[in-house]
């Protein structure tokens, strides 16, 4: 196991994991231990904002695993992210308990408002964190499995697959909008108060959530990296580059695709669950197709098929989004569109992919 990691982890990978571990410690320290008057103090709102970026980075990583390494361009990965987010949101709603506006010990406020008398079955056990953690992984995985099983067995590929992933997330968007689905309808789930007994708004909770997000991003990266450097990853690349050749060599292409799709969906679900307590709300708009497309842009900007690039792309684009929507709100969408076009035209390998080419060339040059 150890030799495996030594052999397969280049400097970029080690640097990436080290950086994440470092910021998981340093950012909370600068927030909690450094007095507010100090120039080095990081305000809590920034900690949560950065935590949100890291959750997006984990989503981008999940997307890169299927798109960059297996050629499955999912335009619906936001759905898995949102499902994980809803699972976490349901736990947080039940943690409110009698502290809600209507002070019902069991029913969340919106159910009392809708005049419901009983908790729907879908909400059972969501007061237990263990069950919730299981559902965060299980719900996206099962949906990805069923969807993938039918789509990949029927050999739906390319644009057609992208379109049906888009329909998947749109269908879920419409479903979650309905009040009688029992997930808060239009308003979604919000007003969270406690998470595992700790106040959600407290700086220490926020800092912990940030550290956890960084940690899970590092773990997700290690898992994805281990998968893509294994023989499994080699076969994924073969499927991406010459699917029928792989099939005629005797590989069950659909099994490989389903497996990587499910792992990716689970990672996206975890990302969503980390996102929700930090932004304080989950509503059906998280299922909107444009979110999933934005995630594809992060991966393209950072560098498809590089993992590290996907994460970096997510953070950079969202930094730009925060800045642009703050300073020039009407320009953001044009900026995003222009970014995508420019990257496609001039940096087809994305930032990290292009850097890798430059580094290789410099090495080649010095050797010659």
């Amino acid at each position, binding site marked *: 196991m150890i030799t495996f990691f030594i052999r397969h982890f280049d400097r970029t990978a080690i640097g990436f994991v080290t950086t994440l571990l470092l910021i998981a410690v340093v950012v909370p320290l600068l927030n909690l231990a450094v007095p507010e008057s100090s120039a080095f103090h990081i305000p809590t709102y920034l900690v949560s904002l950065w935590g949100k970026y890291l959750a997006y980075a984990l989503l981008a990583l999940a997307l890169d695993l299927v798109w960059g390494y297996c050629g499955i361009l999912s335009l619906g990965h936001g759905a898995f992210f949102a499902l994980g987010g809803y699972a976490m949101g349901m736990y947080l709603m039940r943690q409110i308990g009698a502290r809600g506006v209507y002070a019902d010990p069991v029913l969340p406020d919106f159910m009392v408002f809708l005049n419901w008398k009983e908790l729907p079955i879908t909400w059972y056990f969501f007061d237990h964190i263990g069950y919730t953690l299981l559902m965060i992984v299980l719900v996206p995985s099962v949906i990805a499995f069923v969807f993938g099983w039918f789509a990949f067995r029927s050999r739906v590929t390319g644009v057609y697959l992208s379109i049906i992933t888009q329909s998947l997330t749109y269908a879920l968007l419409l479903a979650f909008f309905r009040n009688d689905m029992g997930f808060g309808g239009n308003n979604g789930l919000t007003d969270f108060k406690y998470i595992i007994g700790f106040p959600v708004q407290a700086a220490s909770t926020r800092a912990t959530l940030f550290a956890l997000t960084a940690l899970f991003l590092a773990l997700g990266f290690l898992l994805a990296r281990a998968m893509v450097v294994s023989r499994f990853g080699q076969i994924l690349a073969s499927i991406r*580059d010459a699917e029928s050749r792989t099939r005629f060599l005797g590989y069950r292409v659909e099994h490989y695709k389903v497996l990587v799709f499910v792992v990716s969906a689970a990672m996206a679900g975890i990302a969503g669950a980390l996102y929700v307590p930090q932004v304080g709300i989950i509503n059906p708009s998280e299922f909107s197709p444009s979110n999933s497309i934005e995630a594809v842009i992060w991966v393209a900007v950072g560098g498809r098929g590089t993992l590290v690039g996907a994460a970096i792309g997510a953070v950079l684009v969202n930094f730009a989004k925060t800045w642009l929507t703050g300073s020039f709100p009407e320009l953001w969408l044009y900026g995003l569109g222009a970014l995508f076009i420019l990257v496609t035209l001039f940096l087809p390998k994305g930032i990290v992919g292009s850097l890798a080419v430059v580094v290789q060339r410099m090495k080649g040059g010095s050797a010659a």
Partner: protein
Amino acid sequence: MNLDLTDSILYVDAVSVSFDGFKALNDLSFVVGRGELRAIIGPNGAGKTTMMDIVTGKTRPDNGMVIFDGSIDLTTRDESAIAALGIGRKFQKPTVFEGQTVEDNLLLAVEGPRSAWSSLFGWRSRVTVDQVLETLSTIRLGDLKHRLAGSLSHGQKQWLEIGMLLAQNPKLLLVDEPVAGMTDAETEETARLLTSIAGEHAVVVVEHDMSFVRALQCKVTCLHEGSVLAEGSIDAVSANDRVIDVYLGR
């Protein structure tokens, strides 16, 4: 049971298939013996590639029987199941994994576990490595094993793909136009290679290049409009009036 059937590696009986009313195969029947080398010729649209699609599970026949190895019905199985039974296929356009090295291409092809699970947690055995080295010397790409497959010449890619079939150690190889785009020297080399592997494996070659077919020195089947027009030695087939009319020309 038919005597032909028990001796055969591939038994195709009365197979028909049509696409949108076009009869690609029309009551096609032929038999390939174990270890036999067979050339299949015929004009464009005669059904040569469709025949390979049927045998490898890419297309299902409308009716007829395809029996492999004397007893296994191929018409109900899909590509990966048929590949696992021991049928390898080379495409008309050389198809290799361009982003991977020559050696890795062969490692992916070598017979062994194919499940996603084993690819994640399995180990590669020493036997596999020996088999790859052996195949590399057979196809004469030993010096290029660390090169990316995408950087090979057209002819070398054809050989690599044949090598990938050999590494699978199949009982039957279906080879679609192996010498398209090859130089004369490469063509000769390929004829020698295919003749040498026949015997241990049955080989079915689809080809247009008549001098290459002649060099194979084997039984020839000529297809036309989805069924067999003539079958026999190259001299007999090329002297056949109907073959001359529809394919070779006067």
